[in-house]
């Protein structure tokens, strides 16, 4: 009989702003260690039982380099037996960590895994790794690499999403996120303190209290200039039917750049019983896929379809959906491809537009957010999906027990 992969817990830090943010001064390894310590203390974990630590991190250099997964576990004081690794599936890293953990457990070879992610975007900015995708000319010339924002504007141009539609989605994200904070819906969020026990942050500080459509509409398009420099032409080489790329994405309807970390505890039934852990959900299926790298952001729907097929489910079987708000158009394209007409069960507590998208951590954050809300609503099946650089997509379907 197959070993099911159980989710025992999922926690996260609050998300701190990039500029003058509350988490700027804490190193990523320290931040991740604090979260690890919180998790082990919360469950009174015998950490020697942890088979592996898998941490998603998209810029694994500098502060975040040299295998932050192992380094943080060591610094958290976890048992010396605990191994750790860092993985990179770009923006899907946090969820990929969980998916690998699930596969490890289902293989029967390992029993208890800590999976999650970290990204301190204020300290290790995007592009810090100088990866060849964008920084090695022959590679980007081969891929027609364009920055994600151009890909998002391309989606909007092809599908005909107006600036107003995107801003409305952004406004909804802000309102839902603010409301969720007021009603304390994020059970998975734990406060972060400094070494003296002084509070650093206990809420997502990127959320805007009084956001209005008018404010959003005043923001300048973020990608017009780089588009004119050549990226529009580069993208149109692949999409000749597009006469012009409408630059409709702004800082307001794109995800926020923030610091944050998240951890999810995954294990077999046996390990949970042994350590006296409460199973909250089963991972029903996981999937990754890849689409055109230039438009880059259309992976969520095909990944979801793949995951649904594995789980032998239909999209109508899903009670709640978290689709990462990397850009507003990503959500709309996902809904269009999946034939979903309403956002009533999508990103119900807001998303990355309001709260920010700490690249490596977001997948695990969304899973925790989804699980909290499924429990609050007493619903059963949930889906997490993200668009991933290079044209990839990732999805995970969970079911409460």
């Amino acid at each position, binding site marked *: 009989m197959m070993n099911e992969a159980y989710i025992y817990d999922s926690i996260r830090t609050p998300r701190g702003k990039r500029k003058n943010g509350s988490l700027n001064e804490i190193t990523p390894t320290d931040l991740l260690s604090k979260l690890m310590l919180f998790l082990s203390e919360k469950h009174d974990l015998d950490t020697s039982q942890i088979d592996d630590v898998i941490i998603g991190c998209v810029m694994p250099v500098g502060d975040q380099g040299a295998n932050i997964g192992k380094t943080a576990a060591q610094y958290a004081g976890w048992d010396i037996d605990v191994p750790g690794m860092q993985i990179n599936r770009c923006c899907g890293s946090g969820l990929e960590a969980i998916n690998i953990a699930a596969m490890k457990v289902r293989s029967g070879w390992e029993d208890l895994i800590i999976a999650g992610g970290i990204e301190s975007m204020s300290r290790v900015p995007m*592009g810090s790794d*100088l990866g060849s995708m*964008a*920084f*090695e*000319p*022959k590679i*980007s*010339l081969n891929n*027609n*690499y*364009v920055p994600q924002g151009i890909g998002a504007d391309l989606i909007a141009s092809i599908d005909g999403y107006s600036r107003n539609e995107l801003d409305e989605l952004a406004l909804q994200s802000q309102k839902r996120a603010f409301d969720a904070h007021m009603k304390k819906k994020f059970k998975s969020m734990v406060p972060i303190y400094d070494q003296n026990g002084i509070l650093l942050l206990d809420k997502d500080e990127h959320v805007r209290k009084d956001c209005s459509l008018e404010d959003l509409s005043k923001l300048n398009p973020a990608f017009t200039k*780089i588009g004119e*420099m*050549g*990226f*529009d*032409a*580069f993208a*149109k*080489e692949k999409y*000749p*039917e*597009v*006469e*012009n790329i409408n630059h409709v994405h702004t800082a307001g309807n794109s995800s926020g750049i923030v610091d944050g970390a998240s951890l999810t505890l995954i294990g077999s039934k046996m390990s949970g019983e042994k350590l006296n852990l409460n199973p909250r959900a089963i991972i029903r299926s996981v999937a990754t896929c890849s689409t055109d790298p230039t438009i880059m952001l259309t992976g969520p729907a095909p990944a979801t379809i793949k995951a649904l097929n594995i789980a032998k489910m239909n999209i109508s079987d899903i009670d709640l959906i978290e689709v990462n708000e990397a850009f507003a158009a990503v959500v709309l394209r996902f809904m269009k491809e999946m034939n979903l007409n309403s956002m009533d069960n999508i990103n119900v507590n807001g998303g990355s537009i309001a709260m920010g998208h700490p690249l490596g951590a977001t997948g695990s954050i969304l899973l925790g957010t989804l699980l909290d809300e499924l429990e609050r609503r007493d619903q059963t099946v949930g889906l997490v999906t993200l668009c991933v650089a290079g044209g990839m997509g990732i999805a995970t379907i969970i079911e409460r027990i």
Partner: protein
Amino acid sequence: MKYKKDADNIASISLKPESQNYDSLNQNYVNALLKNIDKLENETELIGVVIRLTESSSLAKYDIEKLFDIGKPDLCFKYIEAQKLCLRRIENLKVPVVAAISGSLVGLSMELALACNYRIAIEKEDISFEFSGVKYGIMPGYGGIIRLTRTIGIEKSLNFLLNGDQFNVEESMNSGFLNELSSSNDDMIAKSIQWIKSNQDIEQPWDCKNFTFPHGNAHNSHNASLISLYPAKIRKKTRGNFPAPEAILSVIVEGSLVDFETASRIESRFYTELLLNKTTKNIINANWFQLRKVKSGLSRPKKIPHTTITKVGVIGAGLMGHGIAYVSAKAGLEVVLIDSDQSKADKGLEKIKKILLADVKKQIISDGAVKGILNRITASHKYSQLNGCDLVIEAVYEDRNLKGRVTIEAEKNILNERVFASNTSTIPITVLAEKSNKPENFIGLHFFSPVNRMQLIEIIKAKKTSSHTLAKAFDYALKIGKIPIVINDNRGFYTTRVFERYAKEGMALLNEGNHPASIESAGKAAGFPVGPLAVIDEISIQLLADIREQSSEDLNSQRDSKSAKPWDDVIDYMLKVAKRTGRAAGKGFYEYPENNEKYIWPGIVKHFHLSQKPSTQEQMVERFYFSQSIEAIRCFEEKVLESVADANIGSIYGWGFPLFSGGIIQYINNYGLEKFRDRANILCSNHGERFCPPKFLDTMIENEEISFK
């Protein structure tokens, strides 16, 4: 090359082209250099070397011919590495080496200067420095990229290398390419000797242990963010059709991240790849070999001695006329600009002044030169002013009756041995020559608009045009700095006739339900400066309609006039129903909003319904190439064209047929005649008889000819 050693034990080598023979010059240059390096290496008491780089513009172009011939990657790589070794040996001399520069440097001499430890130039306005290889589709390949980036840094190297920009002396000092300036030759030599004496332990910076890249390598955060923009920037310009800038960018980046020797090999590998690329060969073949052939008188009657022209008459001071007057006066000719009344003639002169003013603003021309040009032009309504002209060009409105009247009127006022030329793009010259009292002196000179910028002139021989007349027209074209191709008279001549195919194919695709944006993208992807619909807007759809009318008048057996064609619907709809004739009217296939960029008129897709199965970009591109190429073959068949070089150069410089293809006939040659015919047959059955391969092609294949020569 002169070698000399002075009393101070400083050797000096003078590099000066001894021969203007392009074909052997560069190999000689390298051989001579090698001999001198041998000598230098064997010197025992030497304390330094001064390499004097004088006027080098002719010697310094790369050894293109040699490189063009190398077909095998390993041989090519070895050749490049061997050439590089010369420069490396100069760097490895145990004594300081100074480049003393008294002339402009290009290409190979730039490479040499960079291999020297120190560069001193005379402070002169007309000295400039450039790596122009990128314009011929190649790159600095003898360590130039590796040394330049290590000398002036990545940021300053980028545009210099990618665009082939020119640096003047001042910019070169600021960038760090030049180390010192001098006031005269003597001063330069004195400074060189001084520097050698006080820098006996000098090494190239990149050979020093503690070398750091000036302003950081490609991973320096400022450079990295800059570089990440360049692939897209390049593609915006090249659409992926020119490999040279892409290779250069890669060498700049990858070469900066490793040591000098490794970087140098990286450069050689990219250079080898570039040289073996078909596109590079096409560009060199067209822009180097064939262009020189054309300019050196390929289609000029050989027996007629060079003719001189001092005074030119231009009739019609409109769009074309004022341009012709302008380029003629600029070339030093005396010009009479005639129009039907004085105010019209003066208006033409005003337009010329406008061009000149703009050039003064851009500092392309001096005030003095402007005065000279304007002094040479007389604007008048009196035909009697034509007296004494060696050549009269009429450029009045495209109306054969009007042109006839002008011819008769003008000929009353000019001497018998003058040449009379008609500037027309559509009316057969033989028809116009009928009005002339001396048809052997009558010829067509087809200028392109805007005359001051377009380099081509299509010279059209009418039935009775004499060799002397042709020679004179040819010499005139060269005199005013244009590229002359020669063709035999025919409806639409060569350029208009073939180019029209592009526009028509665009309309055919539209009629089939392809999205206009896709059609335009395909045109640009194919390498044309603008999409076919944009082109039609520029020339006006009325003109196409006029040509259609005219051709049915002129020729009763023309292919296109027999039955309705797929573009007829489009022409008729735009002209009669939508009433949108083009840019001049402010509305055509595009909308032209004030202060905003043009965009495709949304009404088009409403009328020409989008097909469920549109053509792919590849299919559209192929149709653009084939429809034009086949028409070009017909031009050979009908003996309108007689030379492949004229055909290729005419296509590139006349209507922007993609340079990377090597020109319209090179496209067919590369495709392979038989393969081309087979493909044309398929296109013919799918899209109509305009794609049917001409008999001429069959005959060539039967005669086992493998290419147009």
